[in-house]
C-alpha cells in the first residue's frame, strides 16, 4: 500500500490527463464563444488518424502533428459553418461530425493500410523526460496561455462577449461571427492535438475508435471546471487520476476502492455537478444563441 502512490502513478495521471486537457481547452474556447461542441470526440479521432497518416506520408511526427491538427481544424470549420453561418442546431452538427469521423477514419484506415483494425506503426513524438511525452508539457503549458488569453487579452474578452451576449457584443462593434469561427476552428485544432497525443505521442499507431469517449470526458471537464481554464485543467487531472489509479488498482490485489467506481467517477461527478449540487454550474449565457434574429 505504501508504494502505491509512486512517481509512476503521477506520470500515469499526467499521461491520462493530457489528451483531456487539449480537448478541454478547445471545448472551453468554443463554449466561451457561445458554440456548443459535442463534436470534440470526432475532432479528436480525426486528429489521431491524420497525425498518423501525416507521419506515414512525410516520415516525420513533427509534420504529422500539424497535419492532424489541421484536419481536425477543418472539422471545426465544418462545425462553424453549420452552427454560425447556417444557424443550425449545434448538437445536431456535433453529432454528425462524430458519426462522420468514426466512419471516415475507419474507411481511410482500410484504404491506406489495407486492414480493418488500425494503422501500421509510425515513429512517434519524442519524450521530454522520464516517460513523459513532449505533448504532455505542451498541454499543461497551454492552460495558463488560454487563461491569460480569455481573461487578460482584448481578443479573449471579445470572444467571451460573443458567448455571453452575442447581440450586445454585436451592437458595440464586435464581429461575433469572426470570433465564433476562430474559436470553433481553434477548438478543432486543439482537440486534434489531443488525438495526436494518443496516436503519435503515447502510442505510435492509430486504432479504430481509439479516443473511446475522451472527447465527451473533456466536455465534462469543461462543465465540471465551471467553464474556467484552470478549473477545467484541474478536472482533467482529477479524471486522469481516477483512470490512472483504476489501472493500478486492477493490478493491486485487495485495493480498497472498486476500480469500476473509479472508471465511472468522471461521469458520476459531472452528472452531480450539472445538477448544481456541488457548485453553481452556469454555462455562458449566449451558448447556443445567435447574434441577430433573421
Amino acid at each position, binding site marked *: 500500500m505504501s508504494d502505491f502512490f509512486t512517481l509512476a502513478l503521477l506520470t500515469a495521471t499526467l499521461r491520462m490527463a493530457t489528451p483531456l486537457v487539449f480537448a478541454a481547452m478547445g471545448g472551453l474556447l468554443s463554449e466561451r464563444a457561445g458554440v456548443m461542441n459535442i463534436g470534440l470526440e470526432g475532432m479528436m479521432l480525426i486528429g489521431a488518424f491524420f497525425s498518423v497518416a501525416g507521419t506515414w506520408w512525410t516520415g516525420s511526427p513533427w509534420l504529422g502533428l500539424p497535419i492532424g491538427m489541421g484536419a481536425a481544424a477543418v472539422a471545426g470549420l465544418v462545425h462553424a459553418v453549420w452552427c454560425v453561418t447556417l444557424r443550425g442546431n449545434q*448538437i*445536431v452538427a456535433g453529432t454528425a461530425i462524430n458519426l462522420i469521423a*468514426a*466512419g471516415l477514419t475507419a474507411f481511410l484506415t*482500410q484504404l491506406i493500410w489495407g486492414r480493418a483494425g488500425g494503422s501500421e506503426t509510425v515513429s512517434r513524438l519524442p519524450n521530454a523526460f522520464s516517460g513523459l511525452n513532449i505533448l504532455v508539457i505542451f498541454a499543461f503549458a497551454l492552460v495558463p496561455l488560454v487563461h491569460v488569453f480569455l481573461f487578460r487579452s482584448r481578443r479573449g474578452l471579445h470572444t467571451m462577449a460573443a458567448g455571453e451576449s452575442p447581440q450586445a457584443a454585436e451592437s458595440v462593434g464586435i464581429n461575433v461571427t469572426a470570433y465564433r469561427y476562430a474559436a470553433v476552428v481553434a477548438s478543432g485544432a486543439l482537440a486534434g492535438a489531443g488525438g495526436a497525443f494518443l496516436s503519435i505521442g503515447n502510442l505510435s499507431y492509430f486504432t479504430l475508435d481509439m479516443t473511446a469517449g475522451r472527447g465527451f470526458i473533456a466536455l465534462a471537464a469543461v462543465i465540471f471546471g465551471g467553464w474556467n481554464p484552470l478549473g477545467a485543467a484541474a478536472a482533467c487531472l482529477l479524471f486522469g487520476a481516477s483512470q490512472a489509479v483504476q489501472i493500478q488498482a486492477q493490478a493491486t490485489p485487495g485495493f480498497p476502492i472498486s476500480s*469500476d467506481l473509479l472508471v465511472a467517477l468522471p461521469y*458520476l461527478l459531472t452528472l452531480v455537478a*450539472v445538477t448544481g449540487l456541488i457548485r453553481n454550474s*452556469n454555462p455562458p449565457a449566449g451558448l447556443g444563441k445567435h447574434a441577430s434574429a433573421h
Partner: protein
Amino acid sequence: MTNRASSSILMVVGSILAVIAALLVGAIVIAVSGHDPWEAYRALAEGALGSRRGRAETLVYAAPLLLGGLAFAVAARAGMFNIGIEGQLVMGGFAAALIGASDWNLPGPVHITLALLAAILAGGFWGAIPGFLRAVTGAHEVITTIMLNYLAFRLITYLIQKRSDWLPVDPQVQGTNRVLDDARLPVLLERTRLHLGVVIALIVALLIWFVLFHTVVGYKIRTVGLSRGAASYGGINWGLTVTLAMALAGALAGLAGAGESIGLHGRHSASPPGLGFTAIAVGLVGRNNPIGVIFSALLFGLLSAGAPSMQANAGVSREIVLVIQGLVILAVAAFEAINRFSWFRKFTSPPASPGGDRASQVGMAPEVEPRPTPPAL
C-alpha cells in the same frame, strides 16, 4: 393548399433532397478513393433489396433504428434533445437478456412478455433520469444523457464481470448467458433473421403516432415542446410532462435493445453497438414524425443491410455508410437552414405563418430557450 400541408410537403422534400445530397457527397468520397460509386451503390442496393434474405436483413436492421428514432422523436416533441438513446438501449437490451436467460420454467409467451417489460422499465428508468433532472434542477439533458450513456456501459460491464454469482452473465464472453430458446422472439420467415421484433417495432410506431396526435398525453408533450410558457399558462405541468416524455423515449429505446438481445443475437454483449447515434439521424430525417421515422428507418436499414455486399462485391469498405449517415444529418440541418432564410421561404410557403408544424423541427432549429443567468465573471 393549407399552410400546414405545404410546410409538411416542404419537409418531406427537404429530407429527400438531404438524402440525395449525402449520397452524392458519399459518391465523391468513393470516387476519390479509387472506386466506381455507381458500382458501389448498385452492389449496396442489390445486397439490401435484390434477394429475399437481403430484404429481410433490411427490415432486421431497420427495426432497432425505428424504435431508436422514435425515442429521439418523442423526446424532441417535448423539446428535449435525447442523446441518451444508446444508454437507454443497452439498459433495455441487458435487462431483457437477463430475464430471457433465467430458467424459470415459464411458458414462452409469458417469458417473452416479462423480458420486454423489463426492457421497457430499464430503458424508461434510464430515460426518466435526465427528464427528471431537467425538470427539477434545470440540468441540461444533452450533458446528463451523455454521462448516463457511459454510466450504463460501465454499470453493465461491472455487472457482467463481477456479479456472475447472482446474475445469468458470463464474464468469458463479456455478455449475458444465452437467452432460452422459448424466450427468444421467434423468427417469422424461414432461412432469414426476420424476427417478431420487427413487427413489434412497426406496431409501436403506429401506436406512438396515435399517442402523439390523438391523446391528451401526446397533446401535452407537443404543447410543452412548442412553448413551455404557453403550456404552463394552459395548466400543463411542464416538469412532469418532460419527465414522462423522456421516460417514454427511454422505454422505446429499451425496447429496441430488447429486440437486439432476445430477438436478433440471443444474448446481450458488453460492446456498445453504436445504434443510438444512428437513431438520432433516423429521427431527424423522419422529422420527428412517427410515420416519417418509419420511412427513414427503412432507408437507414437498407444502407446497413447493403453495406456488406458493397464491401464484398465493389471493394468499398462498409464504413462509408457511417459517413453517409453523418452527411445526411448535416444535409438535413443545411436544408432546414436554407428554409429559414426568407428569400427561399418566399417561394415555398405562404408568408403569414411559416413552418406550421414547428415542433417537428425541434432538434433542427437553434435553441432559443432562456437559460439560467450566470453570475458575473
